[in-house]
């Protein structure tokens, strides 16, 4: 593979200039709150899988809604790129959500599929650590790893439930800090109610704890029945959203809603036509 050509192709896909066909292969999303250690864990995984496996990483960061610009900093954590023996079998691309275009998750799907078609064994997507785009990225992956960290004693929050439902594996990172094992306990308790609870790994990306296990598991993660259902739901929502967002009249209809008072019902009717 010619790296430069691959990089240009990915830009073309991102700019909507190149169509992609769906490819079979392993796409794993790594998601979790900001700063929990997703990039550091990815680094640990890459150190263990490369150069034996060819791994691509799509690291997603938010676009500023005000300026349309983005600061893409996940690469800083990837010390593996300094390792000449390994970096040749790794490809890392930073992606801005460009949320104004509305359809970023489907573009990430195209990028991931193109990487699989370019002979990568595994594509890891590091998602933005918050909100709905995180759930939507889950629609693209066929396995999902949710990363948690030591919380400030607030237990497992209700709003996390949706995300945990998606998890095929949970990693509780920062085991070197106080409170991490309590989170494992809390999660274990709350997951006893589920009949196919995902496995939990206690890890420390900075101390190297749990990373061998994580790297081994990532290649052979079993799909949970409930995560499959949650993922398919996200896929359906995403597909439906794309129908709206990709409609050429989308922006014009929004203008009419905001300026002429077009109602939501009437707007939806226009999309149907």
């Amino acid at each position, binding site marked *: 593979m010619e*790296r*430069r050509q691959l990089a240009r192709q990915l*830009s073309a896909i991102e700019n909507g200039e190149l169509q992609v066909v769906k490819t079979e292969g392993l796409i794993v999303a790594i998601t979790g709150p900001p700063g929990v250690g997703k990039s550091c864990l990815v680094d640990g995984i890459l150190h263990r899988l490369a150069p034996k496996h060819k791994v691509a990483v799509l690291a997603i960061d938010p676009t*500023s809604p005000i300026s349309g*610009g983005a600061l893409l900093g996940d*690469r*800083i954590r990837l010390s593996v*790129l300094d390792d000449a023996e390994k970096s040749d079998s790794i*490809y890392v691309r930073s992606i801005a959500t460009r949320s104004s275009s509305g359809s970023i998750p489907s573009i990430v799907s195209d990028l991931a599929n193109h990487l699989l078609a370019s002979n990568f064994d595994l594509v890891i997507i590091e998602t933005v650590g918050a909100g709905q785009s995180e759930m939507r990225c889950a629609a693209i992956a066929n396995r999902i790893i949710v990363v948690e960290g030591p919380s400030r004693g607030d237990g497992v929050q209700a709003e996390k439930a949706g995300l945990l439902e998606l998890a095929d594996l949970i990693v509780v990172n920062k085991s070197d800090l106080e409170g991490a094992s309590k989170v494992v306990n809390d999660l274990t308790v709350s997951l006893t109610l589920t009949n196919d609870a995902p496995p939990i790994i206690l890890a420390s990306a900075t101390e190297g704890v749990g990373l061998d296990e994580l790297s081994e598991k990532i290649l052979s993660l079993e799909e949970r029945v409930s995560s499959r259902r949650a993922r398919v739901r996200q896929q359906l929502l995403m597909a439906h959203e794309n129908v709206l967002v990709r409609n050429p009249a989308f922006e014009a209809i929004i203008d009419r809603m905001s300026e002429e008072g077009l109602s939501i019902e009437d707007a939806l009717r226009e999309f149907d036509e």
Partner: protein
Amino acid sequence: MGARQRIVIAKPGLDGHDRGAKVVARALRDGGHEVIYTGLRRTPDQIVRTVMDEDARFVGLSSLSGAHSHLFPKVCNLLREAGLDDVVVFGGGIIPEDDRSQLFDAGVRAIFGPGTPSTEILEFVEFASGLNCGVGSPDEWHWGE
């Protein structure tokens, strides 16, 4: 505002001064660009690899330690060797006037010192993106000529 560019901001060498690079990275983001920040202590090879993988059109180098005369031309040469001729190289930091013409000759298109307003850096990016002034271009233009 000009078109959105993908810009790598990099700190080559052992220089640990990263405030300026971070200020510039943020200013470019606020100007609507997608900025990939490499973090401290990158080798020229790593910087070129990042530019290639990220398909960036610009690379901004920051140096306050005095190693610019060696490192900036090195990055320019490696970019050309990698066939990344259309990438625009610019830089900033503590870079004495006397050193600049040598850097321009090597292919660097702009040097910004302390106190540069971020609007000027944004103007440069917008202007340069309309020119054929990549590191492999024979054009001898540089900003502030």
